[in-house]
């Protein structure tokens, strides 16, 4: 698939270019360097912006305005009657030169953009998007930023220059997706780990109770955890084998009413002591069940750590009122009501960062607090201590009056739990645990005494029934905890596996991207070094670009600086050298780029250069980089407002590898025209007036056209002019020009150096100058214009055109054809 040259641009109603009904048109030659000169304020920047808007959809200068300044109102020219901006672009492919693609982009005052293709491109917006490469449109700021940016930003913008911005973006996205903290938060890895640990401990504790009660009930050890169903049947059968209670044992322990069995035993035994024993057994069971059911290691330490971290995070915020302030600021900024990013909306002082960054950072701190509160709530819920405290406080046996568990749960819920609260919970748990142990010891001793004094058979039966009940409860706990542990562990394992997987993917991508980018940098190394040396004549300054092995940072240093090695380019190079280095790097990268655009538009990129270095750059472009000079070269379009540079442009204009245009006009109200376009337009309009017999209307246009053509001869053939030439009466400019040209011809002729051919010289002296003087100067400049006739003035137009042709010669080309060139001067052909 071919790449595209920029062949033509037509602009009307965009930014500074009004040109209502008469668009500015610039044509560019793919095989030449295309220079465009304009003095300040004649629409040069508007052309560059029009190209940027058409291709990129934005105008950087307008993007930087605040919303309050309503940048969207400044795309369309303020004085255009139709209030419609139209940009027409024509491109030609480098593999099918005959076929061109025409795209028309419009924008109305409401900001509606339309893109169409009269040439029949099926996806004109996509076509323009394919041309949106970083190197295609470059201005001075692009170069000056390159060296001064941070290594990271430089690396990212350089990736865009190499056509690798998508890789840079995806690398950052993958890194974000693999961020450890984000994964912990989004996938709740830490919380799941705590939960799984809690379930595991509960299952272990339940297993202990299960084994003990089974041993008590059946008299053998429970060893095979894979056969719990069988053990449950054995336990049930052990109880069902006792005649006194056999009828009351259900088909399984889960369907057995243990309270009813105890009632039967009490009835069978009778007596106050038996009732007391039964009550004691129940109390002992209840107090035993109140024992902590998990590992003693699982305390509230993680909650305490969370609360301490929360306190730290709270210290980093600025309180509730400030939170309201930042929320309000965020609303203001997101609504685009405040668009001066470097100014504080409250005190209007200038900031060293953007207000968006500051507000975002502050809000992030409050978000971190909210996240931490959620984490504390989860840790509190996952901890075995709070439910144990509640069970202890709710136990009638411990007789607690001042209960704290409910209060603390409320504080956890509303995020106000303090370190003191956590310590209070720990103290209360410790106090009640001690009370439980003491009471259990007392009641166990009393129970032992009673058991000694009562008949042993029913005591044993009571203990058996109690063991059955305990076995049943422990089996439930064990089954539930094990299932919860399995589910949680499986979820945690999968999520941890994803975390490791995405981290590896991000790492692999980053390594591959670094390797590819480094290879690309190595590929342009010789080119940019050579360009830099040619631009600055700096053999003893060797720049070096190096991509960081692990990050996107791109470092610029000097491998040699007058004998010093590996020193900072940013610190040592002057502004012009820094820009020369940036230009060398950009152009080298652009040459290697194989993206859709095969053109590069440079807008005032030589601002920091003196004349010598400007010419070096232009010669570099002309002789080595442009498509006409190198088969892998690019089409160059160079905009400049530099008068010295324009002389160089003018000298090269039409010399095979260069074409030059000059803008003139009066934007933003009037028209902007390229010099050639303006001359042709003047001639056509004047001829139209003359054809209609409107001599008076034609006269000022005639004067402008004659001046344009004569000044073109003076510039092209380097005719010397008097020092006050430009300051003389403008009404007499035509005769001033003719005088200067005639004098120069006479003087060169007398010196025997005149290069004009005899017929040319003769025609100038005997035909064209007399015709112009006789039919124009003698009438117009003496204010006797009334005697001018349309036919006479038309003959003047023809005379001036033929007069100009006398200053050109035919150069025979290698294929035998001829090419018309301006004489370099009156004494030199070229």
């Amino acid at each position, binding site marked *: 698939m071919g790449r595209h040259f920029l062949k033509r641009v037509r602009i009307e109603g965009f930014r500074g270019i009004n040109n209502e009904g008469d668009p500015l048109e610039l044509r560019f030659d793919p095989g030449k360097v295309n220079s465009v000169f304009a003095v300040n304020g004649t629409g040069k920047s508007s052309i560059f912006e029009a190209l940027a808007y058409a291709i990129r959809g934005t105008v950087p200068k307008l993007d930087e305005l605040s919303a309050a300044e309503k940048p969207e109102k400044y795309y369309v020219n303020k004085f255009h009657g139709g209030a419609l901006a139209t940009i027409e672009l024509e491109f030609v492919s480098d593999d099918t030169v005959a076929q061109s693609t025409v795209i028309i982009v419009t924008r109305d005052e409401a900001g509606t953009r339309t893109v169409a293709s009269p040439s029949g491109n099926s996806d004109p917006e996509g076509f323009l998007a394919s041309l949106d490469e970083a190197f295609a449109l470059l201005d001075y700021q692009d170069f000056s930023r390159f060296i001064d940016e941070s290594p990271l930003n430089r690396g990212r913008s350089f990736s865009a220059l190499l056509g690798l911005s*998508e*890789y840079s*973006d*995806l690398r*950052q*996205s*993958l890194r*974000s*997706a693999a*961020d450890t903290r*984000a*994964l912990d938060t*989004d*996938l709740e890895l830490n919380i799941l780990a705590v939960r799984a640990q809690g379930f595991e401990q509960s299952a272990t504790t339940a297993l202990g109770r299960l084994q003990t009660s089974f041993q008590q009930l059946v008299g053998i050890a429970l060893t095979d955890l894979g056969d719990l169903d069988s053990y449950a049947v054995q336990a049930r059968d052990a109880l069902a084998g006792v005649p006194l209670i056999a009828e009351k044992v259900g088909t399984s322990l889960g369907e057995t009413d243990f309270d009813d069995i105890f009632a039967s035993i009490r009835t069978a035994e009778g007596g106050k002591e038996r009732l007391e024993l039964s009550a004691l057994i129940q109390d002992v069971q209840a107090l035993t069940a109140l024992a902590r059911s998990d590992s003693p290691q699982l305390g509230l330490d993680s909650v305490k750590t969370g609360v301490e971290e929360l306190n730290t995070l709270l210290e980093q915020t600025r309180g509730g009122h400030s939170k309201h302030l930042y929320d309000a600021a965020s609303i203001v900024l997101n609504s685009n009501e405040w668009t001066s990013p470097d100014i504080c909306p409250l005190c209007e002082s200038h900031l060293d960062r953007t207000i968006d960054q500051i507000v975002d950072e502050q809000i992030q701190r409050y978000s971190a607090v909210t996240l931490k509160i959620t984490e504390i709530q989860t840790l509190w819920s996952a901890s075995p201590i709070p439910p144990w405290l509640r069970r202890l406080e709710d136990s009638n046996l411990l007789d607690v009056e001042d209960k704290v568990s409910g209060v603390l749960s409320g504080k956890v819920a509303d995020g106000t739990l303090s370190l003191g609260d956590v310590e209070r919970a720990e103290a209360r748990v410790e106090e009640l645990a001690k009370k439980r142990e003491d009471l259990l010891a007392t009641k166990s001793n009393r129970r032992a005494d009673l058991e000694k004094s009562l008949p042993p058979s029913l005591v044993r039966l009571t203990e058996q029934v109690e063991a059955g009940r305990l076995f049943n409860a422990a089996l439930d706990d064990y089954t539930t905890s094990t299932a919860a542990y399995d589910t949680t562990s*499986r*979820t945690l394992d*999968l*999520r941890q*596996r*994803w975390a490791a*997987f*995405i981290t*590896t*993917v991000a790492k*692999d*991508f980053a*390594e*591959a*991207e670094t*390797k*590819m980018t480094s*290879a*690309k940098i190595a590929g342009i190394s010789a080119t940019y070094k050579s360009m830099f040396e040619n631009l600055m004549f700096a053999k003893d300054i060797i720049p070096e670009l190096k991509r960081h092995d692990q990050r996107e940072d791109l470092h610029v240093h000097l491998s040699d600086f007058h004998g010093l090695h590996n020193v900072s380019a940013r610190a040592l190079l002057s502004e012009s050298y820094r820009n020369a280095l940036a230009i060398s790097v950009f152009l080298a990268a652009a040459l290697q780029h*194989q993206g859709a655009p095969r053109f590069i538009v440079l807008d005032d990129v030589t601002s920091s250069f003196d004349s010598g270095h400007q010419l070096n750059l232009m010669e570099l472009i002309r002789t080595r980089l442009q498509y006409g000079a190198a088969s892998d070269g690019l089409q160059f379009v160079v905009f400049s407002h530099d008068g010295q540079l324009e002389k160089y442009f003018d000298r090269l204009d039409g010399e095979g590898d260069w074409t030059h245009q000059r803008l003139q006009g009066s934007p933003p109200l009037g028209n902007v025209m390229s010099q050639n376009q303006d001359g042709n337009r003047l001639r056509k309009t004047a001829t139209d007036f003359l054809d209609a017999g409107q001599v008076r209307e034609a006269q000022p246009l005639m004067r402008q056209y004659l001046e344009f053509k004569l000044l073109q001869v003076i510039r092209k053939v380097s005719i010397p002019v008097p020092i006050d030439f430009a300051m003389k009466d403008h009404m007499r400019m035509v005769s001033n020009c003719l005088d200067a040209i005639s004098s120069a011809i006479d003087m060169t002729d007398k010196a025997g150096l005149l290069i004009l051919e005899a017929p040319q010289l003769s025609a100038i002296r005997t035909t064209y100058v007399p015709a112009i003087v006789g039919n124009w100067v003698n009438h117009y400049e003496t204010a006797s214009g009334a005697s001018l006739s349309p036919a006479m003035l038309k003959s003047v137009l023809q005379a001036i055109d033929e007069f100009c042709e006398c200053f050109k010669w035919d150069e025979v080309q290698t294929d035998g054809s001829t090419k018309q060139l301006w004489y370099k001067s009156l004494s030199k052909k070229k």
Partner: protein
Amino acid sequence: MIEFDETAGLQANLERLLLAADESDPELAPILRSVIGDLCAADDEGTRRTARAKVNESVREQLAQLAEESSS
């Protein structure tokens, strides 16, 4: 370690990455394939944060489904 072909374009190189991921973990690679578009679409810090949250939410759902399938 994978290598990108600088002449092939991002899509082709992404395919290399996904194939390598598939070899590394065939169960998780399809999840990566399903979210890579969201990651590609992000081009600044704001869109990247949104994309990460969306991707991780989708990853949680797909991992839950994977866990359910493997346990049944």
